[in-house]
């Protein structure tokens, strides 16, 4: 009987989780001890490393969620292993995406207060992150309230799919609309090698953390499906005498 916390994970997932833990520690060391403090922004600039890492992965997970929705609808929602995986991956990416989005939207204003002197501006990238976050929340609200049957899943998948072109239009619109606002400071790229090390280290750490969370969440979803199937079989057996 498996009961321990780590035994519940498959070996691959345990390895992934361990790698993520190491990478997070390494990234923190790189951010605070390898990268120098930025000349004008000082220590507050350190938040950038995890802020950008979260934002990039939020976008990646959003794209993945949309592709899962596309695959789900492409499979026609037919019961089967492929549908279960695609569906579970859709939920997993959306939930982890919301967590990353929350990180982006908390660290962003904190940093903006120091760098731009204001908590929030309707700067294009900020607005886009907010809209991705809202689309993710709507997706999860659909999963929670529109029913977990095939119908509810179909609607949620539809939203994930329509979110992809919608995001393109939102991006275009906010870019034109917010034209007068300050531009993101890092257009020139990271010149300092120490900063570059810290940036890529935190990027790798976010990748591993996201992958771990998504894979664990996917496993939970698959197990849930198996449990439902077992209950169904039990019901059928007791009904049959």
């Amino acid at each position, binding site marked *: 009987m498996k009961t321990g916390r780590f035994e519940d994970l498959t070996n691959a997932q345990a390895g992934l989780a361990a790698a993520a833990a190491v990478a997070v520690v390494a990234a923190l060391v790189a951010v605070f001890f390898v990268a120098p403090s930025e000349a004008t922004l000082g220590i507050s600039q350190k938040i950038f490393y995890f802020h950008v890492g979260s934002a990039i992965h939020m976008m990646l997970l959003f794209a993945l969620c949309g592709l899962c929705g596309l695959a*789900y*609808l*492409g499979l*026609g*929602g037919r019961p089967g292993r492929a549908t279960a995986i695609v569906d579970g991956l859709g939920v997993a990416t959306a939930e982890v995406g919301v967590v990353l989005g929350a990180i982006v939207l908390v660290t962003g204003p904190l940093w903006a207060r120091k760098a731009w002197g204001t908590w929030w501006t309707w700067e294009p990238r900020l607005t886009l992150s907010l*809209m991705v976050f*809202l*689309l993710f*929340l*709507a997706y999860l*609200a*659909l999963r929670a*309230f*529109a*029913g977990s049957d*095939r*119908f*509810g*899943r*179909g*609607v949620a*998948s*539809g*939203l994930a*799919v*329509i*979110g992809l*072109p*919608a995001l393109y*239009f*939102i991006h*275009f*619109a*906010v870019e*034109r*609309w917010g034209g007068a606002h300050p531009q993101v400071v890092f257009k020139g790229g990271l010149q300092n090698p120490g900063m570059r090390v810290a940036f890529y280290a935190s990027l790798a750490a976010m990748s591993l953390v996201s992958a771990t969370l998504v894979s664990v969440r996917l496993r939970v979803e698959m197990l849930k499906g198996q449990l439902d199937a077992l209950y169904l079989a039990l019901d059928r057996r007791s009904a049959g005498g």
Partner: protein
Amino acid sequence: MRALDQFAAVLRKDLTIEFRSRDILYPMALFSFLLVVVFSFAFLSDRGKARDYGPGIVWVTVLFSATVGLNRLFDRERENGCLWSLLLAPVSAGAVFLAKVVGHLLFTGLMEALTLPLILLFFDLAVVDVPVFLAAIALGTVGVSLVGTLFSAMLMNARMKEVLLPLVTYPVLVPVVIAGVKVTALGVGAPLAEEPGPWLRFLVGFDMVFGVVTLLLFDRMVRA
């Protein structure tokens, strides 16, 4: 031309029922009228600001009132499983979907014909560029109807659909609101250093892309 006949038949059915019962048009029109009155009290403390608020109020009113219509759009298809019977019949799902979209467009258009003059009147706005103003309203409303009808159909049987529908459609419709407000502002002569052309092209692009996407998705989603 069979698809066109099917489209016409579904649309005729909806219009006939609507003009006998008026249970979409009345709530929509009354709601939008009430919204405009509430907005007038909320924003008209400063007469000089009316031109700044006007375009935004136009689009909030259109979006909210269109949602009232969307919530009711598939109500009569739910009873006795009408929509599924409709789709079981040898008709193309796309024809049914487009008939519903056009139906919603007509209802929203009628509501706008009543409400928009009121907004112009209450907020003391003058339309200086009529084609641009009308194009903004028309193109924006098409986008709202396309996205809204898709999710209205899909959420027909869901619990709390009245709450879920705006939750799902508004994030997708943000670009329409942004572009709509800009072009409407230009239409009523707001002093903006912009041309309406790019925004109108943007709205045309939105309508075309989402016309195709929603049509394909409706077909897939009713089968899934």
